[in-house]
């Protein structure tokens, strides 16, 4: 008797957990799905009920010069951000994991801060600094700002992977006469590839998506994709914005997914040649 009651109690709790989980997933995806569906609405006004299926808003979008310019700007910024952030983030993670130096603990805390300090504060801070030294807002400033925002994530990802790579491999290469640089390039870097690709993708997305800080940092007259969307939303929500949202969803979900697939096949290839790789 008691046994069955206990079991039933457990089953109800588990059902509740499952139910809430399903609700959370619906909650996460419902607005995204609604946006994609509405982007095909034939009506002038963004909203239900649908009055018919149409691709006209995508056509309008392709002819919208402001949107295309913002898209190109964001793409370039995100590419540069991804490359630079990955390079300096991976070397930082390497130094933090492999070396012992004074102030290491302080530095590793400092590196995470940009992810924890609200963007509004980071945005204002940099503006106040360049106002104090009387410098204009430039593209370089915007890119460096994006690098600052992405660096914590790249360092954390690379660090997690780095801890799992044993240093004896490097030491073996060094004892065989390889230089510090070539041992890093030949031994450590290939083992780090998943973190490098993962970090680069994340840095790209963080930069491409950044809104709050970009609003402060962008040079006069420059719009990035999110700031462009924000200024379009000030007018009204139209099917064109829903179409734009759908295109952005395809880009930002598609790129990491393809990247992830490439990554998986890369790791599989390497696993074949290398029987024992110690991961954390």
């Amino acid at each position, binding site marked *: 008797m008691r046994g069955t009651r206990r079991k039933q109690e457990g089953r109800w*709790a588990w059902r*509740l*957990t*499952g139910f*809430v*989980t399903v609700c*959370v*997933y619906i*909650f*996460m*995806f*419902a*607005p*995204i799905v*609604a*946006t994609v569906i*509405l982007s095909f609405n034939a009506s002038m*006004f*963004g*909203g*239900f009920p649908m009055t018919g299926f149409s691709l006209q808003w995508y056509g309008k979008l392709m002819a919208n010069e402001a949107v295309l310019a913002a898209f190109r700007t964001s793409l370039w910024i995100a590419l540069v951000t991804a490359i630079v952030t990955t390079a*300096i*983030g991976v*070397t*930082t993670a390497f*130094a*933090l994991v492999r*070396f012992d130096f004074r102030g*290491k603990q302080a*530095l590793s*805390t*400092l*590196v*995470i801060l*940009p992810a*924890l*300090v*609200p*963007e*509004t*504060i*980071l945005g*204002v*801070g*940099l503006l*106040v*600094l360049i106002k104090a030294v009387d410098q204009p807002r430039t593209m370089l400033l915007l890119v460096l700002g994006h690098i*600052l925002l992405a*660096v914590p994530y790249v360092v954390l990802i690379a660090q*997690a992977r780095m801890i799992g790579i044993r240093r004896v491999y490097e030491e073996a290469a060094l004892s065989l006469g390889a230089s510090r640089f070539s041992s890093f390039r030949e031994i450590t870097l290939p083992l780090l590839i998943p973190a490098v690709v993962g970090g680069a993708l994340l840095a790209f997305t963080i930069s491409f*998506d950044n809104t*709050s800080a970009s*609003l402060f940092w962008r040079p006069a007259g420059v719009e990035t994709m999110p700031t462009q*969307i924000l200024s379009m939303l000030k007018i009204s*929500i139209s099917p064109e*914005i*829903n179409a*734009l949202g759908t295109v*952005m969803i395809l880009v930002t*979900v598609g790129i990491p997914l393809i990247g992830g697939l490439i990554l998986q096949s890369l790791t599989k290839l390497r696993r074949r040649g290398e029987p024992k790789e110690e991961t954390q």
Partner: protein
Amino acid sequence: MKRRWTLYDPRLAWMLVAPVLLLLIFFLVLPIAVMGAYTFFTFVTAGVETSALTTANWHEFLTDSYYHGFLLKTLRVGAMTALLCGVLGYFPAYFIWATTFKHKWLLLLLLIVPFWISFTIRTFSWINILGEQGVINVALLKMGIIHEPLQMLYNEGAVILGMLHFLLPYMILNVYVSLESIDRTLISAARSMGCTSAQAFREVTLPLSLPGLAAGLLLCFVLAAGSYVTPQLLGSGRDALFGNLIYDTIMGELNWPMGATLSIVLFVVLGFFAAVYTRYMGMSQIVKGLGG
């Protein structure tokens, strides 16, 4: 011993971290320091200030209840968002951890995908759900349950909902990471000693997952309290938070000294919560959550 010293030479380490260090100094430390100094500058007129030192900005902030109201509301909205995230996020995290479903990775991937989708788009997409012509209103009108569209947008509830949508994955992943680090034999042991599954959860699983929950709560609170875009898109003028106040003070009124003062206030207040958290829980849990 000597060989080790040359192998892991600290000087080489400093060279490797130099770019990041320079970036952090010039784009994080120095700006915040200059901002601190700016709070004592004198505001003359829009866009103009002098470096004559004054405590007027601080005096204004400390005496004007307008600012206090903003601060309290921001903390309240941040706390409510974080608590809702905690309650709603724990269930999926637990479910993914405990399920026997073979493709767990898919459930996790589905949570990470929203991270990739532009935050601005995810925020405005709620207009398609809550708006006058949104899914809910149109469905309810069609079914004849209501005759006038409900006003669900542009209020505090919509702002919290939008932030919940943005922050839930952070919470779920944080809790999941900490559940994943629990030794499952502990739970079997508890069960074999006669605990019901509810007791095993209360006595073993829940306490051991608290660090992840706490890290998630802090992260959600800080990010919600510092938000700018969500109140802008989903709230009315009355739902503006501290971030909007800072933006308007600087970009609208061009009152830089006051904007700097408000930024430092937000920085110190949120930093206080983070410091209390690290005092008791340590930094490592947040690091796990962000990297996971």
